[in-house]
């Protein structure tokens, strides 16, 4: 399977297989005007299988979402057909408004205007806990 090479845009590579749709939703790519290609289950030497997302426009990505959902992905910025930048996300210290707390006893369940905030509890394990009730994300 081949996809036209991109002239100006972003390639999000090394996404764990099966996570591309999730990233598509959380990065709110459905709201974009530009072409978006999702490649699923692409053979990879490093990962066995991986997903890839290609955008034919350089947009501002939500790095917190990338760091949380696909901390090992690589983001390639392409201009005039050349890869000009290669970046990797970092695990964000805080996730604000990305995920919601699932604990039915959490204060966020009755106070809708409170922002859902998660803090990085363990960097090695990449675990996040709700700021308010400390439930695991």
């Amino acid at each position, binding site marked *: 399977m081949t996809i036209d090479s991109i002239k100006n845009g972003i390639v999000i590579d090394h996404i764990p297989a099966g996570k591309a749709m999730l990233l598509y939703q959380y990065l709110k790519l459905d709201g974009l005007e530009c072409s978006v290609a999702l490649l699923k289950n692409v053979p990879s030497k490093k990962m066995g299988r991986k997903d890839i997302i290609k955008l034919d426009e350089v947009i501002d990505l939500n790095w917190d979402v990338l760091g949380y959902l696909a901390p090992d992905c690589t983001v390639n910025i392409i201009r005039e057909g050349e890869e000009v930048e290669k970046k990797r996300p970092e695990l964000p210290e805080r996730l604000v408004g990305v995920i919601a707390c699932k604990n039915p*006893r959490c204060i966020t369940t009755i106070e809708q205007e409170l922002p859902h905030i998660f803090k990085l509890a363990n960097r090695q394990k990449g675990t996040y806990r709700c700021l308010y009730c400390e439930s695991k994300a």
Partner: protein
Amino acid sequence: MRHLIDILDLTTAEIDELIETANDIIQNPAAYAHKCEGKKLAALFFEPSTRTRLSFEAAMYELGGHVIGFSDAGNSSSAKGESVADTIKMIGCYADIAAMRHFKEGAPLVAAMRSDIPVINAGDGGHNHPTQTLTDLLTIKREKGHFDGLTVGFCGDLKFGRTVHSLITALSRYENIKFVLISPQELKVPSYVKDLLKDKGLTYKQTTDLDSVMPELDILYMTRVQRERFFNEEEYLRLKDSYILTPEKLKTAKEDLRILHPLPRVNEIAVAVDDDPRACYFRQALNGKFIRMALILKLLEEAGK
């Protein structure tokens, strides 16, 4: 603005200070009888807890202060849909310090983030109850004289018991404490508590058998094993008696063992144990008032009130 939401908001040095103040109050109550004259504590109990509320009220009265507030959500503005943040803003106009009990986890933190007065978490759902932990720490310190090197047994429901998690967290900051975790398989401590002990390289052992570890213990912290926590009735009936403390079970215990319980108890400690000098759960309840007095003084002082 300084608050107390989680026991880890306090350093061990600050906990030592609070214990010292509480001991001084016990020795010399008259010296503290007017310390909070003209001050008001708002007791904001969105969920009823007579025991905790009485302890806070007694603490404030014995400091010469006053108490305002409500004792369940039905009487409060939250019943009309007011947010916790708005409630604490409004209360800040009338009171100098607040103690908040809430059925939702994290509510006191939300209040603290918006408050102009110090907020004390008086229990939020199954999450935190730092003044109970301070009470436990004061009790251990008064009964044993130190924390370092103690072998502390926790018995009963270690899965859902927030007082257990919080006390283990607090004690994990002292030297050479050995933890003995005694519970049925179904009610073992959650993995995050074990991870904490492992990460800190602390010694702990898990067992289902109270009798076998009784002789090692310096402290035995009892909690209730509730029927509804079990998957089946058979298991409950088979196990319930092994987690009930009786004079018989105490025969192999150390002379200077101390038995703690956050109260209320149901049947997990036989009434016959109450007369044993090693039982100190009623002294523990009294300590709760003194450590709350020390805490109110500290937070008011830091707030410059």
